[in-house]
């Protein structure tokens, strides 16, 4: 497998992003700033079925 350092960095960034999103989702990291608040909106979208 030949992978460039840029490619590897992108994959690492993706992995870090998923871990961060998970920590916001579970309220372990605070949902502050534009990113945090946007994530909360996204999670609400994924649970909007509470409205039936």
């Amino acid at each position, binding site marked *: *497998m030949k992978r460039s350092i840029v*490619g*590897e960095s992108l994959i690492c960034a*993706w992995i870090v992003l*998923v871990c961060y999103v998970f920590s916001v*989702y579970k309220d372990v990291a605070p949902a502050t700033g534009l990113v945090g608040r946007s994530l909360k909106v996204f999670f609400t979208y*994924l*649970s909007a079925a509470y409205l039936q």
Partner: protein
Amino acid sequence: MTHFFKIALPLFFVVFACIGGGVILLRPLKLKNLLGQSAPFSVLFFLGQGLLGSGLILLALAGLFNLTYVASIVFVFGCLGLCHVFLNRESLYSSWQSIGADWLRDNLLWKIVAIAVFLILAAGISGVAGRIDGDARAFYLALPKVIASSHRLVPLPAYETFTSVGLLAEIQLAVLFLLGMPGASARLFCWITGMAAATVLGHIAAYAGLGRRGQILSLAMFGTSSAVALFWGQGKTDLFAAGYGLCAVLFALSSWTSTARRYAIFVAGMLTAFALVAKLSYLVAFLPCMAILLLWGELPKIIISFRDSEARTELLKICVVDALIFFAAVSIVFLPHLTKNLVLFGSLGETYGSHQYFSADTTKRIVLTYPLLLIFGNFWAQYGNLSPLLLAFFPLFFLSGKIRNAFATTWMALLIAALSGLISWVVIFPAVPMPRYFLATLLLFFIPVAWAGERFSQSRKLLGCAVPLASLSVIFIFFKAFSIEIFPLKNAYDYFVKTQTEQAINVDERLSYEAYTALNNAAEPGARVYLISYFRFWMRPDLIQVTNGIHDGDIGWDEKNPDKFWLQLYESDFTYLFVDRSHPAFEEMKKKPSWVSLEQLHPQSNYGGVYRIIYTNPPGIRKWTTREVAPGAWDVVPTK
């Protein structure tokens, strides 16, 4: 330490009895032929669960579920299981030695990941001191408690039609209650089942060619999926079906190369049927998955058959024979379950509930958000998610470069089988985004993704560290996020060691327990309690048996005629009232006629209020009463 032994000893014997059952079901020599190694104890454990569960359902149906019979069966099977483990201890030592050696050989980061995975799985034991899930308080733990106390299997009041579901797990929990496990500690068996399922997943990973790191990643995903971990200690029984399903997958894979191929298909059929009995919804996503895995072994013949008519006929013959063997095994396993339904309901199955939980618009949104909702969704009754590691490592799978002969690999078969199962589920039940209904299918996704993660972890660059670091981070976040719900370590320590009573369990559960205990202390044997609550587990089993059920369906609050409600209660012999504010007319109910008074036995709270109903010169006559028809078994009967 008596409390500890009351918990540990029944568990110990039942676990070994299950292994013993597995030994009976499969001759060890054959199993060695099938799996290419000495029999994994976890596989025997699940097979034995199926055998014991099926047999004990018939025993309970006959009203013979008493300590003498059950303890004798558990003792004999348990001794057999113990002997088997003792005689095969070398294989246990050698597998632990091999795991230990691999652990020592790996680098520090992976050593820490392995320990973290072990700890997160082990910490699940503390779930026994956590909150009990609502469904378990209503049915999944309440029914086993009643079976153990009444020594018979009859429909649970208010859940009469629902009792037609498969009761493989519930009957095993009933054994643990019968053997004297205190409180709700029998739910610890769900955690043991979960750990056995984790072991089987590890075996599947090994079978699919994953190395030790890949196996660790599979288990990390297993341990950080709340759709799995929530079932370790909350008393719901969904993990049992997943365990049977994973074992079925293992045998389906072994059928490709085994010298006893048809025997492997038969065992895979039995295990599939155990999974279907335990969770009928597996019919939709798991059965197609198994069909693909069983057929995959014939892939070379399938390819040849496209251009050779003789090969096509030969293939058709093989498929028909295999299908017959598979469905013969399924039919045999279904017999006790169908017998139960015929005896209890006069039909093979009852219909209950609907699977149209959401509106058309919401359903559309659910379908559009697959597969993200499986990881970050929180729909009503979804009950947990899959591990975020699945999402984190999934792109690695596509970036693994050109994979030579991918279709000849086991992980590819698992990926395609799991994908087919998922698609089948979304097509048939688009409005049911609940992983527990097809958990075994979803767990198979862990294997190919762990394979990709393992492949990248061998990189010396950034990714070599990113994979284990991400695993560690997710394990830490998961533990922190669920420290109360799944990992109440302090409560568990108090429960097992310090106070050794129900006072040590989660505060919500304890307050609920106290409300029901007030009722249990006051009510006479076989007294009728009108239960205005979904939950009943903490009630005395004699009281649960005669609470309001399907036959009391005409009792209801009538705003225009409040006296009628109280008269109906009197006529049906209800002398206690348990209210948890779930009834819409709760406040209205306080308006009562002059001939009724309520004595409060436990103050009204969110956990329930308990009242004794005192009738003074009631205007009607009592039409129903209760009678102990056999030791511990209570029925509602007409007054003479």
